[in-house]
């Protein structure tokens, strides 16, 4: 269990993001403690992805603050946040199609290691070969290491996408619908990988997901968003049983 004294890693304070007259994110506040796996659920168009984009500096919030370790990082560039140990996956795949699976992984870590000189003259795998191989093993992608990413199945590309997010050794990973389109067999393994990254590497997760079974079995806490507002926040079972959540999202 995550104790109440675990330090807060990420905090959103009264975040607002409007597009014209629409308030896609309408005053959202929550905190993520170290070691948590926070699930974010809610109907399509409820503001989940916009919230992610605001948290990661890809969209500037109209109002409110984002704090990382208590430090204001509102509107900080994604690359700068990445260097502070925050990475993300995308709802739509974002791998490099014409690079090998292994090169995709090395690429994700290479800007984080070595001095300028080392970057110019250092070894081609940037000293990340071992880390890439470990990640290939974790995500069961060893056999595909030399394949072009474009030749992978959709589910395998999802795994690669997640592995890329973990390459930089992040403390906080935001996953946008990681289970979407992944077949059930792969998915069970994927959940185990994420749990291992959580317990062994101590990484904190925020996960947007529609697959309720996946959310219930993975997350330590869940928030439900509807029309840009948080309507429930608590233990997975409690949120699933919440009448407001059932009405707005789950149906009967």
């Amino acid at each position, binding site marked *: 269990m995550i104790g109440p004294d675990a330090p807060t890693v990420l905090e959103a304070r009264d975040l607002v993001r409007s597009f014209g007259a629409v308030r896609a994110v309408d005053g959202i506040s929550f905190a993520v403690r170290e070691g948590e796996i926070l699930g974010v659920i809610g109907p399509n168009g409820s503001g989940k992805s916009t919230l992610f984009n605001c948290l990661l500096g890809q969209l500037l919030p109209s109002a409110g603050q984002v704090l990382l370790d208590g430090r204001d990082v509102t509107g900080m560039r*994604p*690359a700068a946040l*990445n*260097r502070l140990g925050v990475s*993300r996956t995308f709802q739509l795949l*974002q791998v*490099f*199609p*014409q*690079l090998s699976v292994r*090169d995709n992984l*090395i*690429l*994700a870590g*290479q*800007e*984080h290691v070595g001095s300028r000189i080392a*970057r*110019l003259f*250092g070894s*081609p795998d*940037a000293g990340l070969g071992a880390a890439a191989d470990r990640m290939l093993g974790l995500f069961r992608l060893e056999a595909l290491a030399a394949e072009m990413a474009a030749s992978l199945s959709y589910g395998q590309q999802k795994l690669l996408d997640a592995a*890329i997010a973990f390459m*930089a050794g992040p403390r906080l990973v935001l996953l946008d619908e990681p289970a979407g389109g992944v077949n059930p067999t792969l998915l069970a393994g994927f959940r185990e990988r994420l749990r291992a990254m959580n317990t062994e590497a101590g990484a904190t997760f925020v996960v947007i997901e529609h697959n309720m079974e996946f959310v219930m079995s993975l997350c330590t806490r869940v928030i439900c968003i509807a029309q840009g507002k948080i309507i429930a926040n608590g233990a997975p079972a409690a949120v699933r049983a919440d009448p407001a959540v059932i009405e707005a999202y789950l149906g009967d």
Partner: protein
Amino acid sequence: MAALLAQLLLTGLATGAIYALVAIGFSLLWQGSQVVNFAQGDFVTLPAFVMLGVMGYGLPLWVAMPVALLVSLLVLGVLFRRVLVQPMLRHGVMPLVIATMALSIFMENAMKNVASAEAYPFPGLSGGIDLGPLFLDWQSAVTLLSAVLAVLALHLFLSRTRTGRAIQATAQNPAVARLLGINVDRMILITFLINAALVTLAAVLISPAYLVKFNNGEAIGLTAFCAAIIGGFNQVRGAVAGGLLLGVTETFAATFGPDQYRAAVPMVLLIVFVLFRPQGLLGRREERRV
């Protein structure tokens, strides 16, 4: 007959290797930043004139070459990107295409104003070696060798180094590359610098045979453009294949067919490829959603 064919093949490959260098630059610019550079041929002529200018002061070619390289990196690399590409690309690919056409006209007329319409001789290597029925002239041998080395070095750089990998990532998905902390802007600049170096090398290799004239770029640029498309516009090794194929076909056509149709060879091949194999020899299909 076999000896003649082998001889022609050799000459064709040497010419094709130069086309390949120019075509690689062409396709790198396209992959790196969606630039279709119709001034690419004139990019070859400019360093040739710079070298002639330096040699005009009585300096040897090996001094003129690094000077020309420096000028190319600065003018055809940095300035070209800053002054023309960056401001125009915001308005889309087509306006930039028109702009590079205008740049071509501007460069040709500027070079004509400075150097007149005369065709200037350029120092090359004479002599060669008799290999039985085959005569290998030093110029072709050095041309082939340097082109092969340049392509090999570029290939190793792009596939085996951190910077090369970052350049590929930038070409394939700039948004995510930026997210991963890659300096996308610098990677694009590097592709422009590589192109400037390639055209300078091409200038050294092609000028002894073609002489140096203000409008030489028209034919070279067009041929390189066709080579890049025939090979597959989105692949470096495609540009190599396309360049070699064009060089060889052109040489054979000029020997066995009427010489005045030599210049039509690239265009004919281009039409054939666009009709029957639009993705080129080694290219992959690109999808565009409208």
